[in-house]
């Protein structure tokens, strides 16, 4: 049974939402603190750290608010295809980043 089919108690959802909001508050603060902290020489490490925290934030929203932690198999299948194509989209973009056709100027 998916989460949305289970019997619902408003009180338990209040508690869940309170916890989720607190964690979102903490992760957002952590992202801002990381952004302004002196970490490494450039932005690479900072960007990696900030995006990692954002992933935690996203997991909370998707897992608990969207009930993805207890969904039907078909939803996971749809999302598995989406993740595959999304990785392909980003991966091919980065793969092609320095692949300049012969005769064209590279900056």
């Amino acid at each position, binding site marked *: 049974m998916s989460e949305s089919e289970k019997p619902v108690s*408003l009180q338990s959802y209040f508690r869940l939402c309170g916890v989720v909001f607190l964690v979102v508050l903490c992760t957002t603060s952590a992202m801002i603190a990381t952004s302004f902290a002196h970490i490494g020489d450039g932005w690479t490490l900072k960007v990696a750290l900030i995006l990692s925290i954002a992933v935690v934030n996203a997991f909370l*929203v998707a897992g608990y608010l969207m009930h993805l932690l207890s969904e039907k198999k078909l*939803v996971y299948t749809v999302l598995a295809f989406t993740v595959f194509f999304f990785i392909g*989209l*980003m991966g091919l*973009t980065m793969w092609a*980043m320095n692949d300049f056709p012969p005769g064209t100027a590279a900056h």
Partner: protein
Amino acid sequence: MEIPYTVQARPDTGLYNAKLGIWLFLASEVMLFGGLFSAYVLLRVGAEPGMWPHGWLNVTLGTINTLLLALSAITTLLAWAACKVRDFTKFKIFHACTILLALTFLGIKSYEYHDKLIHYEIKLNNGTFADGHLVEKSPDFDLAKKTGTVTLHGHIVTDEKELMDLRSPEAKSAKHEEVTVAATDIKSMGNYGPRHNTFTAIYFTLTGLHALHIFGGTLVIFYFWAFGGAMWKTDPERFTNRIEVSGLFWHFVDLVWIFLFPVLYLT
């Protein structure tokens, strides 16, 4: 003829129609925003050293908007939970909160856009740059005819790179005051709109598309809030499913912002 599986789950998929539909739609939305995010990566990595802006956006406003959207996602979930326990009054209260939070988000976003559109960078004939927010243009100001003056609240820099990192100690210590420039001294002039550079182009595109999603989602939620009573009386289970589906869309919009905020405001 009655449409099947609007309330009950299909035996083969385990989902009612609208829920499968919204997940397929969200999958396509991931690819839409994914394309733009990959464009962002391409533009950022391809920028010349020192020419990718940092600190151009107001982190405080971005943070407020992040929390507003998180709260609205929570009120959306609570509105659905209220429907599940058959409490229509609480549903109305929670969804009213969602609408108010969404409108506040859009109001703040509009303020940010306005701030960028009145922010000008003027390249002067002597090679320096005047940068700041527009105070006034003289009535006879005409850049093409080279008449009149324009006044900015900002400062003058010798190198455009000085305008890129607003978190640098130099940028923080820069003294901002009113600068009046004659049209005859101006080589080129433009605001920080989408045409300014690749950062503002992708910023306006990503946040504009996201704001459109917020606007569309708000309209749908408002429709259910204002006119949902009729279906609630006749078919509350189906109405609850509609609230779940619109909620899933709303959570997706929140998810997109969770990545937009750090990517644009913090890095």
